[in-house]
């Protein structure tokens, strides 16, 4: 089995993001960037499959500018075998990302594609689902458990009501929830080794897909600040307000 993992470079989750004064977006200059957190779960799962002897080859793909090589090096240091940077000057919408990935998948023929469930920058939560539709493969989103036997996948996925269990076949597209596993740390010797693992670069223009944005961002603002409400005098008043004014109890 060959596993392909899609990773995205995003502002580190610990950074308190700042909206630019001109409202054109969020400040990313000189800001710490990292692998999108659930993508780390996808990487971890792929590496585990390899360690268990279920996968023969693991491959990480990212789309971005030259700096996005960082996240591929991190993936390689965590144990992925090889990687591809699809070089794109602009950041893409999920639809275009999925189309790009589908082109790479055509070439690479993986049996299993793993993605994070959501990128923590634009929070779209779409790419995996779109990709599986484009490939006409089964999808399982927000997975928190995975077992593979031969061609069969046994999956638990996180849904609002609890957990859903599915069975499906390879090839498939899965998006990973944070609960799936605990991503390993890249050890120092493995970071060294990762520097020598393959990292191929493909220019997105060679893939022949339409990556033009279909959505225009008019402005990005800070969320409105919550304002103080009223002070009630006693418990009786509080309960009454909640019942008859706010109607929440």
């Amino acid at each position, binding site marked *: 089995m060959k596993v392909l993992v899609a990773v995205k470079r995003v502002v*580190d989750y*610990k*950074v*308190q993001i*700042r909206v630019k*004064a001109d409202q054109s977006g969020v400040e990313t200059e*000189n*800001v*710490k960037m*990292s692998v999108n957190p659930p993508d780390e779960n996808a990487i971890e799962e792929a590496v585990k499959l390899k360690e268990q002897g279920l996968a023969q080859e693991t491959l990480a793909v990212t789309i971005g500018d030259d700096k996005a090589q960082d996240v591929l090096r991190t993936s390689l240091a965590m144990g992925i075998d090889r990687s591809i940077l699809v070089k794109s000057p602009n950041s893409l919408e999920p639809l275009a990302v999925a189309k790009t990935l589908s082109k790479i998948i055509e070439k690479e023929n993986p049996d299993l594609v793993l993605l994070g469930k959501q990128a923590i920058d634009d929070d779209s939560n779409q790419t995996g689902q779109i990709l599986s539709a484009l490939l006409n493969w089964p999808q399982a989103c927000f997975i928190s458990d995975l077992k593979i036997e031969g061609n069969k996948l046994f999956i638990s996925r996180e849904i609002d009501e609890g957990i859903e269990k599915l069975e499906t076949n390879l090839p498939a597209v899965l998006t990973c929830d944070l609960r799936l596993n*605990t*991503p*390993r*740390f890249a*050890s*120092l*010797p493995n*970071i*060294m080794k990762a520097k020598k693992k393959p990292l191929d670069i493909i220019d997105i223009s060679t893939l022949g897909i339409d990556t033009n944005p279909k959505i225009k961002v008019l402005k990005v603002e800070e969320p409105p600040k919550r304002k103080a409400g009223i002070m009630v005098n006693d418990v009786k008043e509080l309960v009454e307000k909640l019942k008859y004014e706010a109607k929440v109890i």
Partner: protein
Amino acid sequence: MSDIQREEMSYDVVIVGAGPAGLSAAIKLKQINSDISICLLEKAAEVGAHILSGNVFETKALDELIPNWKDLNAPVKTKVTSEDFLYLNKEKSFKVPNFILPKSLQNHGNYIISLSNLCKWLGEFAENLGVEIFPGFAASKLLYNEKGEVSGVQTGDMGLDINGNPKDNFEPGINIKGKVTVLSEGCRGHLGKEVIKKFNLDANNKSPQQYGIGFKEIWEIDPEKHNLGKILHSVGWPLENDTYGGSFCYHAENNQIYLGYVIGLDYKNPYLSPYDEFQQFKTHPEIKKLLTKGKRISYGARALIEGGLQSLPQMHMPGALLIGCDAGTLNMPKIKGSHTAMKSGIIAGEVINKHLSQNEHLSIYEDEFKNSWIYDELHQARNVKPSFQWGLIPAMVFTGIDQKIFGGKLPFTLQHKHADHDSLVSAKDSKKIDYPKYDGEFTFDKPSSVYLSGTNHAENQPCHLLLKDKDLTTNYTLEEYDEPAQRYCPAGVYEIETDSETQKKFLKINSQNCIHCKTCDIKEPSQNIDWITPEGGGGPIYSGT
């Protein structure tokens, strides 16, 4: 965890800390001989993310190290265009005329920079020369060989739980061996502290080491009030005359100002809260005016090493060098330590090369240091800080005479009297200080400030603030000093809680909040707190600081 099998890697040189000192040493070495293998460890998640500094920058050392830095687009862009020095009282400010300011306080030709950004840039420069930099890896222990010489460092274990047991993702630290180890952890490095003691490096010091705590906030201000390249320093309010300290305010790029405050950690009143002094300072009409309609975008704090020449330890030892603020090369009257840290790194690079290629002894470091411009600079500055034990006004008069008339060449050296942890007066003999409530516009509580620093430590890991006696607060420090850690820690790490059953008060440590400033390690009156490195990558994520 002594039974763990650890991997080992060997390099010619191992450097701890990617600040200006460590980076300069690495760059210099590679420039002299690109075959020398260098491993540089940095505990921050990326280079620069633990660097917090003013910063008005003298380019002297950078000019030596990378003469064409301008062509290479170094983030050193904003020339100082004008400067003011103010004396503040509660309502008013008095401008000290520039002509009576000593030269050390004049900044013509210097630049306003973000040292964090410069370190990031130097890091990329070093990597391009072949230096192997590993951000997110703390050097947690020193390794010694059978002769007792420093032989490298051990990186911290990753993935231990709060009791020190391995979790799922446990990754043991590794041993990194080096023919020479360079300690450049900045002010109060915990390995630096160990070697100073072990090798008695401060045996010949004339004075105990001195420290300060420095705060910095970045504000985006109303463009109308912004004056690119302007710098402003002040002394006086809200500090009492017997406390050493003052403010800085630098107008940087993008309508930002770098606003900060430095307070000597030799303060006496245990009720003093450096954090609150700084917050209060911002409510002075002169500063408030500037901040109105502005927005705070960043916060951080870091200790500074202020002892100067009198307190500078020997900088070489068997197998290693101690450089930059880890040793104490900061020039206090200038509050500048970046250029001297860099120079100490450049000298280290030269000395290590001679050591590796010509078998010269590392002790030549001391002479090379003495023969360089850093020594002259520190010698000239040596009397300023100790004169402040007389109080602000006499010190300013003395400093005027010392620096202006004699150019720092007075034929005597004033000494620092006490180590900073010895300076507190008992709580019962001290005046309580009532600090104003935070207004959420100019002044903020500690959690909100720490929030802006992006600080975090992976949950469920061993606490990196070790207490030698865990009951000392309950049994002694509370009563004697009203536990000053509540106030000197700029991140709210230390809180006093009451056990609801026994009604006993005890010290609670929120180690997750720690911004790695090292103040507790310095100021705890009984030296009861040992700061050690937490899991690599933890701590603040500063940018632009």
